[in-house]
Each structure stands twice: as C-alpha cells, then as structure tokens.
C-alpha cells in the first residue's frame, strides 16, 4: 500500500520536473533541488517519512534562508539540520556512492 503511494508521489514529482520545471530557468537556492530532494527522500524513507522531509525542505526554500548544499540525511531525523542533532551532517562536496544522483533517472 505505502509502496504504491510512494510510487504515485514519485511519478507526480517526475511529472512536475519534466513538464513544468523543465520550461522554467533553474532557480533553486539549494542543491539538490527541492524536487530531486523529494524523490530521494521518498525512495529512501517511504511516502510518509520521506514526504515529511520533502515538505520541511519546501518550507525551508524561502527568502532569508541561506540555501546551499542540503542532502537527504543518511540517518532519518527531522532535525538533521541542527548541529545538536545526532543525524547532523556537514555539507558534502562529493556525492555519496549510495545516493542516487540525477544520472540514474
């Protein structure tokens, strides 16, 4: 059940990327972009937990936030952006081998 919801969500994001995002200039202040982040989060953590991460990311993508590198955390936590969190990670300059990059899609 959850697997199918996840598939539908990922398909939705992919549809957005192909049909809406492709026609507009790139404008995200984060890397990976919100949609790529959402796909990765959904695939790694499922529809609910991953979806929550993606929503939080969208809320972070607003003026007066700094932007920059923001990967899906290796270890699931909603607070991974905070330095006191156990899941906190420094921004990585090189992609991890385990993460599915844009190349795979």
């Amino acid at each position, binding site marked *: 059940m959850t697997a199918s919801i996840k598939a539908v969500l990922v398909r939705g994001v992919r549809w957005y990327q192909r049909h809406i995002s492709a026609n507009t200039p790139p*404008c*995200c*202040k*984060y*890397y990976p972009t919100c949609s790529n982040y959402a796909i990765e989060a959904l695939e790694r953590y499922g529809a609910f937990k991953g979806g929550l991460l993606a929503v939080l990311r969208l809320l972070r993508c607003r*003026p007066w936030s*700094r*932007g*920059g*590198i923001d990967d899906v955390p290796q270890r699931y936590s909603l607070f991974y952006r905070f330095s006191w969190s156990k899941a906190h990670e420094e*921004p*990585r*300059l*090189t*992609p991890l081998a385990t993460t599915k*990059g*844009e*190349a795979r899609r």
Partner: protein
Amino acid sequence: MTNQDQFLLDSGFWGWLYKILTPVEWLQTWIMKLVHDFFVMLGLGESGISWVIAIIVLVMVVQACIFPLFYKQIKSMRKMQALAPKMQRIQNKYKGKTDQASREAQSREMMKLYQDNDANPAGSCLPALIQGPVFMSMFYTLSAIPYIAREKRAPLGAFNVDTAQSFAQTDVFGIVSVTDNFNSAAMGGKIVIGVFVFLMCFCLWFMQFFSMKRNMAAAAMNKQTETMQKMMLWVFPIMYIFSGIMMPFAVLVYWLTNNVCNLCRTMWQVYSFPTPGSPAAEDKAKRDHTRENERRAKAGLPSLEEEELIKAKEEAAIRETKGYQRQQPQRKRKKK
C-alpha cells in the same frame, strides 16, 4: 475609459486579482487621505493641490518601502561579482568533463561557495515580485476613484462618496481635473496632460539611455544585445505615450512621480555601484583614488603615487646591493 458607467477593472480575471489586493489598496487610500488632511490643516484648499501632493507622497512612501529590498539586491549583486573569479576557477576545474558525477560535484562546489559567502543567485527575484502588486493596486485605486465619486462602485477604504467627489473635483492650476484624461480635457488641460506624458516618457527614455551609456561594460556588448537595447530604448516610451493619453490625470501624476523616483534611484546606483568595466566604474575608480589621496594628505601620509615611488626606489636599491638574481631559498640543516 470610454465606458463611464461600469468600472472595467472590476470584472473578469483582473477583478479577482484586485480583490485579493484589497488590503494594500485600503492602506494606500488611508495614506492618501491622511496626507491630504494634513495639508488641508496646513491651509491648502479642500479639493485642490492637496490631493496631488497626497498622490506624490503616496508614491514616495511606496518607493521608500521598496528601497531596502532594492538595496539588498544591489548588495547581493556585488557579492556575486566579487565571487566571479572563484566561480571561474571551479568552472575551469571541471572544464570538458561532462559526465554526471563531475557535473554534480561541480554544482555542489558552486553551491558551497555561494553558501559560504552568503550570496545566492536565486535570492534576488523577491523585490520584483513585491513591487508589481503594490504598483498595480496603486493604479487600481487611482482609477477607481472617479467611479466611486459617481456612485458606480462601492466605496474603497478611506474613499467614501464624499471624499471621492472632493478628489474628483480637484482642479490642478485651475485647468485640469485629476479625473480628466487627454480626450475629455479642455484645451488647457490637453496641454498640461501632454506635457506630463512627455515628461514621463522622457524620464523613462533617459533612465534607459543613461544606464546604457554609463553602466554597460564594453566587453559585454555585442551586436545583438546592442540592437536589443536600442529597441528597448524607444519601444517602451512610445508605448507609454499611447497608454498615457488614455489614463486619468491622477494616474499620470503617480506615473511621473514614480518615474522620477526610479530615475533618481538608477542614477544613484550607477554612481555608487557601477557595473565593473563600464565608464561609470572607471569614473568611480578615479574618484576613489582622489578621495584616498585626500584622506592621506589630511592624515599626513604619502599619497598613493608617492608610496609607489618609494617602493620602486627601495626595490632599485635592493637590486643595486644584491644584484638582479633572486636569492635562492636554502634548506635549513636539521640536527639529527
């Protein structure tokens, strides 16, 4: 504006949009009303030049609200320019590598650079997004007032029927009413409106001309952008002529004030934050140089040129004593 009985901006998609902007319109009407009342208190006529001043003050208030955003945008642009060499280095590092992994690594590195320097290319679209609705609702309010005065439209904010009528009866210099447009005005009014439209277009033209002449880097110019710029220079002012004669005088006052404000802002920007490589930037470099020299003269320090001379002399002296050969570094012998 041929239809006098129905306010056309209230129908269809635009009506819906302006309905959403109602709070902004409400605030603007109150600012106008308060400024008007203030000037009436100072002894100006109830329905006269005080309304024109109210419009002008409103434009200035709006411009003052937008200015911090504009300033922030300039700052962020400067940061981006300062980062350009570092960007170049990253681009060179990944030159000719088109595989996905290095592309990704490149974007990561660029993002890191932006983040570390608090600059972001995507962060600068906000001012434009805010400006648009504010000016739209201002335009809407000013166009709606005549209809409120004729009781064809419901009152809006501070403008009930009485206030709107007082506004609509305003005669500027005793010749032109603020609700007149070019076609409905008398001969004197036509001349005044014509002058306003001309000034408005001239401001816009001059603003573009000025930034083109002074603020364009010569290296960035090619044939195509040049023709584009030249076309822009003439197309917009001429478009304004046609819309200018359609609009009521109140809107023209707002428009002219706004254009003058924009012109001042552009001139200030070109003066203090010119694009690198442009004539304005050269002037600024010269200005900064003389200013630094003046500061040094006041502090009793040698000027920039003198300092350079002193340095050159020292170097020559060193060459005289030690020869032209650079001294080779020597290994320090470590004791074992």
